[in-house]
C-alpha cells in the first residue's frame, strides 16, 4: 500500500478519486505517470536519510576504498565494492527486492526477471540480480515503472502456473504465493490452456509436481554447484521448457533434500512430508543434528508430540544453509521402535515391563554384586555430554574407571585436543589449496564437510588426493593409494605427491575417524604427523592437520575423558550400555549382566538384561560437541515417549538407589560439573584451541600394519539407532544405494 500512498502524493487527481469514492480494490497503474517518468520522479519528496537496516543482516567490508562505488537506492546513498550487484546495493539499503531465480549461494542466472528495478538513464528496467553497480547509479525500487515491470513478470509466471495452492505442500511458505500477494493481479487475462509437464521420479525423498515449476533453475544450479552431481538439467525450449534428468535417473546425492528448500514454488517438495501438515501448524524448535559429527544446525518442526519435519538453520561456520538427507529425513525413526517402559528380561528370554523403582533396584543390586573392576560403561554415538559425565561420575563412584565411548577405538588420545579435532574448522577448509584425505570418505561420513571441500575445489581448483578404499567422490580427486604403504612413501619422500604438498600454501590433511579402530592407529597418526611436519601443514596461522570424527558423541567423550580401552570388556561382569548399539560385545563373558539404556530397540537390546528407556535428541536438552570442537545445545521439541527419562536423570536416579548419590539435581548443576571437567563444553558456538603444546605428545613406537584402510560407513543412510529404525532411510538405502 505504500505504493498507493506514493501515488496519491504525486497525483492530485488520484487523491481526489480516493477521497471521493471508497475504492478498496487494487488500483491498476496505467497512469500518465508511466508515460512521463521524469515528472513523476521530480514530484517525489526529498528522501529521508536516516540509517536503514540492511535486509537479512547483510553487511559488507570495503577492503580497498579506491575500489568502492557509491550508488543511491531510492535516494539513500550506499557505498559498496565494485563488482557487486544492484540487488546487493538494495539489500544494504534495506530494500528487499522480490526474486525467484537469485540465490546468494548459487551462481547468478538472471532468468526470472522478478527483480527488475528502475535505474536512472537506463532505457528499460534492469534485472538487479545480474547488473553490477556503476558509480553514481540512481536505483529506484518503488517507482511505477519498477512496479509495473514486476507485475508484468508475475502475470507471465502465473500464466502457466496451476493455481493449486490449496493442495500444494508449499502453500504458506511459497515465494510465488507471497509475491503474488504484492504483485499479482486479482484476475488473469490468459484464456488459453495451461501448460502441463510430466512429473519426474527423483527418488524417495523429493516429490515433483513439475507443472508448478517456474523454470528458475535453482535446483539445476544447486545440483551441479553445491551437491556436485550433474543430474538435473533444463530441457527443451520456450514454453516447452522443463526441468528434468532426460533419462530415468534418481537424484543420487546425499544433499538432494536441499532442493526442497531452495525451490521457490511447490515443484519440488518433500515426499515423506507430503500432505502431512501445513507449515503454519508447526512449532519450530532450533536444535542440533546428531546423526553425524558435523552438528548441523536444524529446526525441528513439530505438531503436538510428533516431529513432522526437520529443516536446516543458517550457520555459516558449519552447515551454511544445507543439511544432509540423513539429517532431514531421519525423523520418522523417532516414532518407530521406541522403548517406552523400563523392562527386565524374564527367564524365558522375553522382556517384561516393570516400574522404574523395581528396575533401578535390580540394577543397583547387580552392580554392587560384582567387582568394581568388572563394571564397564559404554556411551553410544548419540550421547550428549551431560549424560556422559553422569555415567563417568557414577562409574567412578562405584569404583570403576572403565568408561568409553563407541567409535573412539583403542587407546584414544584425549590429552591434546588438537589430536582429535578438525583443527582448521569446517569453514576454514575453504582456505586450503590442497587436500590429503586419509582413510575417510567425507561424502558419506560428513556430507557437509564434503560440500565445503567440493565448494573449495570448484572455486579454486584445489587438488584433492585420497588414500583409502575405492570411494565415490563428487569432485576431481586423485586416488593415490589404498593403505598405509602410500602414507609411508609420502612420509619418506618417495611419492610424487610430496612435491605437491611442499608447494602448497595451505595444505590440509583430513584423517578419518574410521582409522581409530585399527590396531596400528598410533603408527598411522605418527606417519601422518611426519607428513604434516614435512609439508608444513601446521604453521603459524594455519593448522591443516584435521581429524574427521564420525559420531556426535565422540568429541565430547574425549574431552570428558571417556578413554578406557575396549579390551576391558573381556573381563566385564556388568556392562552399562548408554545408547551404545555398535559396541562389539563378542568378547563379553556369557554370564555378564548388560544394562541397555537408550531410546530405540536397536542392536544393543539383543544382549540386554534390563532396559532403561531414555529420551532422544529431539526430546532433551543436551550439549553436543562437533568434529571441530564447537559445543552446541539441543532444545527439546517434543515431549518424551512413554515412561522414558533424560539419560543423565536416569544415571542420577540409579546412583541414588545404588547408594552413591551424584551431587547434581538439575541440568544447571550437571553443566556446572561439566564446566569443571571440560569448560569448553559450556562455551557454546565457540571453538577453543588446545592449550597444551603439541610437543608434549608422547612418541609412538608402534609398527605399521600394511593392511589397506577400510570404509568406516557402509550405508550412509543407516548409521545409528534412529536412522536404522527410519522407514524413509530404509527406502533410501534400498533404492539409492542399489548397485
Amino acid at each position: 500500500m505504500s505504493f498507493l500512498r506514493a501515488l496519491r502524493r504525486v497525483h492530485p487527481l488520484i487523491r481526489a478519486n480516493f477521497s471521493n469514492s471508497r475504492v478498496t480494490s487494487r488500483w491498476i497503474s496505467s497512469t500518465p505517470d508511466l508515460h512521463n517518468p521524469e515528472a513523476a520522479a521530480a514530484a517525489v519528496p526529498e528522501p529521508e536519510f536516516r540509517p536503514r537496516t540492511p535486509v537479512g543482516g547483510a553487511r559488507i567490508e570495503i577492503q580497498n576504498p579506491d575500489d568502492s562505488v557509491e550508488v543511491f537506492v531510492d535516494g539513500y546513498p550506499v557505498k559498496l565494492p565494485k563488482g557487486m550487484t544492484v540487488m546487493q546495493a538494495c539489500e544494504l539499503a534495506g530494500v528487499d527486492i522480490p526474486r525467484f531465480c537469485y540465490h546468494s549461494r548459487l551462481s547468478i542466472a538472471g532468468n526470472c526477471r522478478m527483480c527488475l528495478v528502475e535505474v536512472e538513464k537506463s532505457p528499460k528496467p534492469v534485472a538487479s540480480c545480474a547488473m553490477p553497480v556503476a558509480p553514481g547509479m540512481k536505483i529506484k525500487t518503488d517507482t511505477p515503472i519498477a512496479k509495473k515491470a514486476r507485475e508484468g513478470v508475475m502475470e507471465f509466471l502465473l500464466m502457466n502456473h496451476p493455481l493449486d495452492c490449496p493442495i500444494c505442500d508449499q502453500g504458506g511458505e511459497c515465494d510465488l504465493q507471497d509475491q503474488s500477494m504484492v504483485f499479482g493481479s486479482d484476475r488473469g487475462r490468459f484464456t488459453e490452456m495451461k501448460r502441463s509437464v510430466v512429473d519426474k521420479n527423483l527418488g524417495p525423498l523429493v516429490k515433483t509436481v513439475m507443472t508448478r515449476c517456474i523454470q528458475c533453475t535453482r535446483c539445476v544450479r544447486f545440483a551441479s554447484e553445491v551437491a556436485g552431481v550433474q543430474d538435473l538439467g533444463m530441457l527443451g525450449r520456450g514454453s516447452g521448457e522443463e526441468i528434468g534428468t532426460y533419462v530415468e535417473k534418481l537424484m543420487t546425492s546425499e544433499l538432494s533434500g536441499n532442493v526442497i528448500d531452495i525451490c521457490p514454488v511447490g515443484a519440488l517438495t518433500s515426499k515423506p512430508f507430503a500432505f502431512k501438515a501445513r507449515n503454519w501448524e508447526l512449532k519450530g524448535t532450533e536444535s542440533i543434528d546428531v546423526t553425524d559429527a558435523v552438528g548441523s544446525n536444524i529446526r525441528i518442526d513439530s505438531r503436538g508430540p510428533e516431529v513432522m519435519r526437520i529443516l536446516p538453520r543458517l550457520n555459516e561456520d558449519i552447515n551454511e544453509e544445507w543439511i544432509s538427507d540423513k539429517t532431514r529425513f531421519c525423523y520418522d525413526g523417532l516414532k518407530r521402535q521406541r522403548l517406552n517402559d523400563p523392562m527386565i528380561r524374564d527367564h524365558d528370554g522375553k522382556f517384561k515391563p516393570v516400574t522404574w523403582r523395581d528396575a533401578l533396584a535390580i540394577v543397583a543390586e547387580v552392580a554392587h554384586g560384582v567387582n568394581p573392576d568388572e563394571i564397564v560403561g559404554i556411551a553410544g554415538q548419540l550421547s550428549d555430554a551431560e549424560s556422559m559425565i553422569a555415567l563417568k561420575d557414577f562409574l567412578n563412584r562405584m569404583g570403576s574407571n572403565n568408561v568409553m565411548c563407541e567409535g573412539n577405538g583403542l587407546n584414544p588420545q584425549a590429552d591434546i585436543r588438537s589430536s582429535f579435532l578438525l583443527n582448521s574448522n569446517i569453514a576454514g577448509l575453504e582456505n586450503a589449496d590442497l587436500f590429503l584425505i586419509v582413510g575417510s570418505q567425507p561424502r558419506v561420513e560428513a556430507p557437509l564437510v564434503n560440500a565445503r571441500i567440493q565448494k573449495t575445489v570448484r572455486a579454486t581448483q584445489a587438488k584433492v588426493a585420497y588414500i583409502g578404499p575405492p570411494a565415490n567422490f563428487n569432485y576431481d580427486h586423485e586416488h593415490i593409494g589404498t593403505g598405509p604403504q602410500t602414507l609411508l612413501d609420502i612420509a619418506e619422500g618417495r611419492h610424487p605427491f610430496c612435491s605437491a604438498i611442499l608447494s602448497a600454501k595451505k595444505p590440509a590433511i583430513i584423517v578419518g575417524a574410521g582409522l581409530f579402530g585399527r590396531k596400528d592407529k598410533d603408527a598411522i597418526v605418527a606417519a601422518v604427523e611426519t607428513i604434516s611436519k614435512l609439508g608444513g601443514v601446521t604453521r603459524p596461522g594455519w593448522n591443516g592437520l584435521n581429524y574427521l570424527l564420525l559420531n556426535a558423541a565422540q568429541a565430547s567423550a574425549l574431552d570428558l575423558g571417556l578413554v578406557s580401552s575396549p579390551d576391558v570388556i573381556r573381563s566385564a561382569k556388568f556392562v552399562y550400555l548408554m545408547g551404545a548399539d555398535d559396541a562389539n560385545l563378542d568378547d563379553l563373558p556369557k554370564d555378564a549382566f548388560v544394562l541397555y539404556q537408550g531410546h530405540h530397540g536397536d542392536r544393543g537390546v539383543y544382549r540386554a538384561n534390563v532396559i532403561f528407556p531414555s529420551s532422544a535428541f529431539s526430546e532433551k536438552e543436551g550439549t553436543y560437541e562437533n568434529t571441530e570442537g564447537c559445543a552446541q545445545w539441543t532444545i527439546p521439541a517434543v515431549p518424551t515417549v512413554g515412561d522414558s527419562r533424560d539419560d543423565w536423570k536416569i544415571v542420577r536416579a540409579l546412583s541414588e538407589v545404588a547408594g552413591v548419590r551424584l551431587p547434581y539435581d538439575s541440568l544447571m548443576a550437571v553443566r556446572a560439573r561439566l564446566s569443571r571437567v571440560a569448560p569448553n563444553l559450556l562455551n557454546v558456538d565457540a571453538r577453543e584451541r588446545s592449550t597444551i603444546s603439541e610437543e608434549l605428545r608422547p612418541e609412538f613406537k608402534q609398527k605399521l600394519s600394511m593392511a589397506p584402510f577400510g570404509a568406516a560407513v557402509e550405508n550412509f543412510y543407516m548409521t545409528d539407532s534412529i536412522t536404522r529404525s527410519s522407514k524413509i532411510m530404509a527406502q533410501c538405502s534400498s533404492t539409492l544405494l542399489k548397485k
Partner: protein
Amino acid sequence: MFSPTSRLAAKRLHGIRRMFLQSPSVSAAAAAAETSRSYSTALNYHIDSPDNNPNMKWEFSANNLEKVKEILSHYPSNYKQSGVIPLLDLAQQQHGGWLPVSAMNEIARIIEVAPIRVYEVATFYSMFNRTKVGKYHLLVCGTTPCMISGSRDIENALLKHLGVKRNEVTKDGLFSIGEMECMGCCVNAPMIAIADYSNGSEGYSYNYYEDVTPKRVIEIVEMLRKGQSPPVGTQNPNRTRGGPEGGNTTLLGEPKPPPCRDLDAC
C-alpha cells in the same frame, strides 16, 4: 436481461469466431494435426525402447572420428564442450537423421561433460531429432510469411500424400515430415527444407525447395522416392533465385555513384 448493445456484441463475436472456424481449405485431418502442434520431434524426456536406450553401444565411424578430431581442434583443449553442437550434428548425420541417447552419451564422454549437459543442448534445438526420422526428413516452414503464402496447405498435402502424421515416419522408412521455424527464404515463400540422410554423413545434404505448391511438393517427394534429385531452390520456372517473376524490373544497370561525393578526391 442483456442490453441490446451487449447482445449485438455477442452476435458479432459469434460471427467472427465462425468465420475463423469455417476456413474452407482446412480439412478435418489437418484440424486434428493442428491441435498437437509441437516443434521438436520428441518429448523432452527419454523413454527406453529397443532401438534407443543407454545400454546400446554407439560409436563414431572411423571416417567421422577424423572429423571429430578436426572439430575439436577448433576449440581450446579446456573448452572441448564448445564442440557439442557440431558433434551432435555429425552424430545425427551418421545415425540416419536422429540422435539415440547412447550417441549423446558418447558425445558427453568425448567432450568430458556430464551427459545431462548434452541432453540440454539436444533438446533445445529443434534441428536435433531425438526420435526416428525418415531418410528424407521434410521440414515445412511454418513462420508467418510462409504461413500466409499457404504453408499449411503444403503440409496437409504432404501429410495426406504420405499418409502419416507430423513427426511420423512412413512405413517404408523413407519420409517424415516436421515443422521448422523461419529459414530465411521468405521472399520465396512458401518453402520446405529436405534433409537427406540416405547416405550417412558423406552423402548428407540439406536443401531448400522454394515457391512450392501442394502439387509441386508431391512431385518432389515422388522424384526423391525414385532416387532422382529434384532441382533445388525456387520451383517457379519463371523465377531465378530470389529475383522477381519474368526477370529484373529494377537495378538493371550499374549503380550510380553517390551524387554529392567526389570519390576520386577520397
